[in-house]
């Protein structure tokens, strides 16, 4: 893998990310009453993470990392744990533990 290409990719990704993070502080006072920004601020976060979650779920099916059962069981445990305790780390770790265990047993 070409080192220059990797460094350029990291640099571009970092520059864009930093720019996006700094943008609202730079133009904060002018954004205050934009109705479009208000609506997007309300709607986009949910939409983005739903897209990312579906993508993550679809990806694991594609790469075939183990059988379907460990993944489905892991997702089920993650969801139930999260509905129960609402603790991000606990939900992620227990779901992953179940997935790893079932994949090892299969």
């Amino acid at each position, binding site marked *: 893998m070409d080192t220059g290409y990797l460094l350029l990719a990291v640099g571009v990704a970092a520059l864009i990310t930093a720019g996006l993070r700094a943008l609202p502080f730079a133009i904060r006072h002018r954004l205050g009453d934009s109705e479009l920004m208000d609506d997007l601020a309300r709607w986009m976060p949910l939409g983005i993470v739903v897209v990312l979650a579906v993508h993550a779920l679809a990806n694991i099916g594609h790469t075939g*990392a183990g059988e379907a059962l460990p993944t489905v069981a892991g997702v089920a445990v993650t969801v139930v744990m999260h509905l129960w305790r609402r603790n991000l780390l606990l939900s992620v770790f227990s779901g992953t533990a179940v997935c790893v265990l079932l994949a090892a047993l299969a």
Partner: protein
Amino acid sequence: MRANRPIIVGMSETLSARPDVSASLPGIPTPRFGGPRRDAQVAAPGRTHPQPHQRRVPAFGADLAALARQIGAVWAGFLAVGAGYGVLVSSAGLPWWFAPVSALVVFAGSAEFLLIGLLAAAAPIGAIALTTLLVNSRHVLYGLSFPLHRIRSRAGRLYSVYTLCDEAYALAGGPGSPALSGRRLVLLQAGLHLSAGVGALLGSVAGSSLLGGVAGLDFVMVALFVVIAMDAWSANRDRVVLAVSLGAVAVAWVLAPGQLVLVALVLLAAALVSRHHVQRIRRRPGSPAAVCGPEPTTGARAQT
């Protein structure tokens, strides 16, 4: 404006539920919704009592210890997710230094994970730039309510903005989050930043031998995204957004399965912008939606 909810609600809720969060900040009420008022309450004592040796300015070590009690678990979580990232990087055939360098320089979880796939497929820089732009566009919203003004030094503010990731926002800037001093804000973010970098280094160097053989470990990120989506849904039960997102993924799946996230997010953004315009037209008295050409059609589809 209505404050945008943190994506990782569960994390901040866990924090607020802990007694030591408020106990370590005597005299500061637990913040509620409505950022500016809360910020003023927190920032005011600092401005009116600038003496450096007052008891209200704790020593560096005390600040660090208090923070570790509050969010040490999240730092540990970043170490683990960083290690998972490192393992993925090395299993994708990228050099060992790439994981820590990208984790420290980019420091945006979901974009980093997408970056691995793009680089492994030797995607053009333009595609990487566009994906980063769309995936991280949500960061634009964080600055609108993040209490950056609590940080006094210019270097501290620059660092805080540079490392303003989802979790930092959820922990410090979102509604219901604990009121941290400026120094604790910077320490919180530095802890997240360093944990991610060290974790990525460990995962990349040692991970493939330690964890590479364990099947199912890549499930960590699936679980993380599922949990984040659940938290976002409980923070904002907007069925239209949910339906539009799922529809966008379905269309992207058919149109461009190789660029699923990118295409889905473009469709999502377009649909939500049309939804905004449709709602504005409907709200305006005396102007029926039918007058406005093709837009209502798009919006009507988005509304279902």
